């Protein structure tokens, strides 16, 4: 291929190693069966929702579950948005219909 102006810049370090590292992390995770996390996550979310609802009124949207993988640690993050006094009655005013 022809030379372009920017090709005179020093090349970045080799990317094949990055590719290998990314794959190893991902595949180790998928093979270990921890990729089954997403399978029980929806049920877990539903259960949490039910427990929380014993104590306060929240919408289905107010529980947010995420999994973060950092190096060899995976963490489960559960965020529950609590109703504020003013918010209690005003539901979502967005155009999105909240079907159950």
């Amino acid at each position, binding site marked *: *291929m*022809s030379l372009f102006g920017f090709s005179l810049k020093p090349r970045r370090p080799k990317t094949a190693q*990055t*590719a290998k590292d*990314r794959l190893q*992390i*991902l595949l180790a995770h998928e093979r270990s069966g921890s*990729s089954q996390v*997403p399978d029980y996550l929806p049920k877990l979310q539903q259960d949490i929702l039910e427990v929380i609802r014993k104590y306060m009124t929240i919408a289905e949207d107010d529980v947010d579950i995420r999994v973060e993988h950092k190096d060899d640690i995976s963490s489960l993050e559960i965020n529950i948005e609590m109703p504020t006094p003013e918010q209690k009655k005003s539901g979502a005013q967005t155009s999105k219909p909240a079907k159950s």
Partner: protein
Amino acid sequence: MTKTEDKALKDKAPLGKVIVITSGKGGVGKTTSAAAISAALAKRGHKTVVIDFDVGLRNLDMIMGCERRVVFDFINVIQGEARLKQALIKDKRLDTLSILPTSQTRDKDALTQDGVEKVLNELKEEFDYIVCDSPAGIERGAQLAMYFADEAVVVTNPEVSSVRDSDRVLGLLSSKTKRAETGGDEVKAQVLLTRHDQRRIDAGEMMTIEDVLEILAVPLLGVIPESPAVLRASNVGTPVVLDEPSAASRAYEDAVARLLGEEVEMRIGNEKRPGLFGRIFGRSA
């Protein structure tokens, strides 16, 4: 794109245009193109989401570099197990870009036409462009990826089986889509010629762009050269247009400009080929 245009875009109601990246044949560059096109649209300030329709063979997340951030996916949303906003992954480089990954464990039967339509309708309320990365083949997964499309980018390599499969897909686009079935405007289909290798064409080993367009008889969206930048970008999980500039990234940027209706002269790599392309435009106009 300027700051003021940027702001104007944000104030407008979302466009909600569905673009399918399809081909029939596998390995021609659909996922590479879906990632590059969606990133280029987002870079211009358009709110864009790219959806992986290749159920069971998730790869778009790797190409976009968000594979470790997938919790819920498209299938979870279709099956009512998660909310759309939980499954959408916001790109860390562009705040106008989101990714909807697919499931690695289920199969394409988990997709339903109603489910896909609901998700697309919800996305249309928020996004200007909804880019669908189709699986290979012409079965259910590929048909659902194209069914609700407004426009199609048919990714083709200058090689017999790819051109033949593209022809097949063009037939499906004009018969097995919602637009075709409801008798509205046709799905606007354009060919994106990828993995173009001028040396092999010059050596007479590969069909020319003209050859391919003559057979397929649809407009040319762009020509993406075979480029080591594509492999490099996939290694690091960056859409090629967000990586360092290359012949491939420029070709994708030009293709996206044309997708948005701008007139951009065709070039191969860095070379302009006015003679050749003058004739092509003459034919397809």
